[in-house]
């Protein structure tokens, strides 16, 4: 439950952080200053979250020593950092490099990232991941990891993979009835809904989010998912009270046979000693359950005071196989760099995630997507909790809200 609260904490911070730095964007009552530019050093500043500071810093320091520059990592709070970055760059307070989940349209739309020309090195990257870092054909983000969720199955409790989601729930319920499990299926949706984790189940109904610029989330396939969701909430197949922490903890304690989560929990689950395999998400609606493909990337600030050093970071450091393999050692997530993919493919877990990722769908790289997440999660939650008397109507209403929001945002 707490993990997803972190999103909230972050949300608060988002506001704060965001608020903060745009300061300068608004018409400042103080006159513009003409201070001398800070001394150009070749010292790069990198902003990223705690998790990636630990993974990147040793690799980047080694590289920086080789190139002859200094590099400093600043730990930012995960959910506030994007907005802080957006706000800080125009204020001249931002870093040179920003490492985060890909959100190219948002960053370009706010004018805070610079284009990067990879030249021939573009061919080294998985095309889909590279495309997520582009807008209108211009490359901004250099991807490093490709992430998707899957089902972790406890092989003691459930020796055979479930063919369908209904089979999984039936097997899970049998275990609960026998007293050997607490929950038939674990997915951390509480308390605010988690469309990212549930996308696999939703897409198995044939539901998509957009067709080009046109919203398709509320079509018949989406409505079918909404009805199913109401049933799962009522039967306890998906428990809306279960947050990320509880879901993970139940799996680690062997109290649930299935868990939907990503590679970021791999190390923790290994340490718990629970015997597991990684399965595709079982289909609930008859079609392939395709989870989201999430991409992580490095961006160069539009206002970097160290354009050469930043550019080297992007086009040299980020394109080295050694870097990509080093990052993989830390996050156990499929590298976006093809030569590194080949080097790490012997790891069965990575291979399993990658195989599932082959069918993954990219998060639509359009700015309208920013208006989708909020109502989407909220509506899923209301349906799961039975607060929406008619789930199909709630789903259609959600579509109306999203359309209004997109129209309002221009």
């Amino acid at each position: 439950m707490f993990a997803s609260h972190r999103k909230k904490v972050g949300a608060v911070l988002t506001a704060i952080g965001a608020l903060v730095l745009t300061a300068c964007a608004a018409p400042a009552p103080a006159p513009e200053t003409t201070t001398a530019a800070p001394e150009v050093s070749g010292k790069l500043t990198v902003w990223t979250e705690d998790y990636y500071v630990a993974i990147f810093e040793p690799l980047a320091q080694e590289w920086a020593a080789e190139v002859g520059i200094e590099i400093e990592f600043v730990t930012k709070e995960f959910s506030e950092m994007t907005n802080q970055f957006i706000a800080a760059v125009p204020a001249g307070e931002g870093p040179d490099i920003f490492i985060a989940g890909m959100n190219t349209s948002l960053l370009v739309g706010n004018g805070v990232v610079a284009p990067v020309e990879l030249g021939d090195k573009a061919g080294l990257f998985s095309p889909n991941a590279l495309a997520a870092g582009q807008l209108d054909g211009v490359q901004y983000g250099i991807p490093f990891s490709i992430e998707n969720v899957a089902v972790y199955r406890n092989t003691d409790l459930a020796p055979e993979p479930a063919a369908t989601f209904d089979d999984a729930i039936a097997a899970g319920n049998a275990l609960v009835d026998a007293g050997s499990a607490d929950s038939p299926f674990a997915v951390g949706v509480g308390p605010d809904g988690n469309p990212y984790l549930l996308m696999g189940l939703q897409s198995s109904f044939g539901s998509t989010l957009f067709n080009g610029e046109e919203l398709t989330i509320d079509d018949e396939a989406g409505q079918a998912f909404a009805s199913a969701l109401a049933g799962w909430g009522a039967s306890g197949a998906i428990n809306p009270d279960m947050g990320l922490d509880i879901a993970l903890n139940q799996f680690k304690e062997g109290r649930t046979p299935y868990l939907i989560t990503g590679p970021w929990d791999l190390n923790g689950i290994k340490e718990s000693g629970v015997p597991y395999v990684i399965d595709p998400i079982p289909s609930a609606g008859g079609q392939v359950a395709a989870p989201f493909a999430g991409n992580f990337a490095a961006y160069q600030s539009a206002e970097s005071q160290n354009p050469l050093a930043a550019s080297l970071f992007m086009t040299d450091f980020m394109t080295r196989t050694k870097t990509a393999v080093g990052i993989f050692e830390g996050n156990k997530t499929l590298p976006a760099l093809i030569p590194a993919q080949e080097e790490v493919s012997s790891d069965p877990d990575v291979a399993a995630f990658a195989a599932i990722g082959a069918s993954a769908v990219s998060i639509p790289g359009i700015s309208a997507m920013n208006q989708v997440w909020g109502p989407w999660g909220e509506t899923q939650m209301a349906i799961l909790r039975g607060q929406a008397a008619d789930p199909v109507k709630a789903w259609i209403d959600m579509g109306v809200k999203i359309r209004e929001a997109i129209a309002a945002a221009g």
Partner: protein
Amino acid sequence: MKTRSSFLGWVAKRGWRHLVAIVMSVIAVFPLLYVLSASFAVSGTLTASNQIFASFTLDNYVELLSDPGRPYLKWWFNTLIISASAATIALLFGALAAYAFSRLRFSGRRFGLGALVLAQMFPQFLGVVAIFLIVRTLGEAIPMLGLNTHTGLIVVYLGGALGVNTYLMYGYFNTIPREIDEAAKIDGVSHVRTFFTIILPLAAPVLVVVWMITYIAVASDFVIASTILSDPNMQTATVGLFTMISLFRSDNWGAFSAGALLSALPVVLMFLFGQKYIIGGLTTGSVK
């Protein structure tokens, strides 16, 4: 029979008060036991399990204090320095203002007093844009008051602390009989000395309370501190600790809990030893 009735008498007179105190203490402390438990727990979650104190390890504390990427000790001392400085200066300024409102008569006194508190009611949460801008602009001219400095943060807190503090002390000063300063005046003691040597000592309880309230408010502030301090070496514990618990990757709860506990320690100790001034302060200089 006698002991029984005296026991009942004790219950009626004092026992129920102990009962209230114990029940409320339990309610106050219980949720925090989770934090304590998590700080000693092997698993990295906060309360995913309902068994508290199921495991014991000091690893979280070791991790907290030994990670160079998260200079917790620095955060801890930063918090102490920033909070204590801000509380002390704010206390002085507030007391000066409260003395004026309580002892001097001037036009706009009533209005001024109200305006002070009203200014503080602005939803600060939405005002940080401006705070950031001011501090950044100040910092361009005077680096000591700029972003990423403790002094810059402290002066911001001084601006926000005046209203309620002044009012609290004003109320208390009003209960100190004016005859006392009148007498001093007749003796030829200057108003400044009256304030520092007569009024302030008499007001010790409220001074301690205001100092503690300000200290706690500053130490637990996230909004402004995270706005102004971005360098990990300069941050306060509250700001630093939150960077440890990012979405999805939740292995830091143990160290986070340990950090939160250690941060609360000075406040609790201060209160434990400072409360005698709150309670005992006026008994000597009581209304004569």
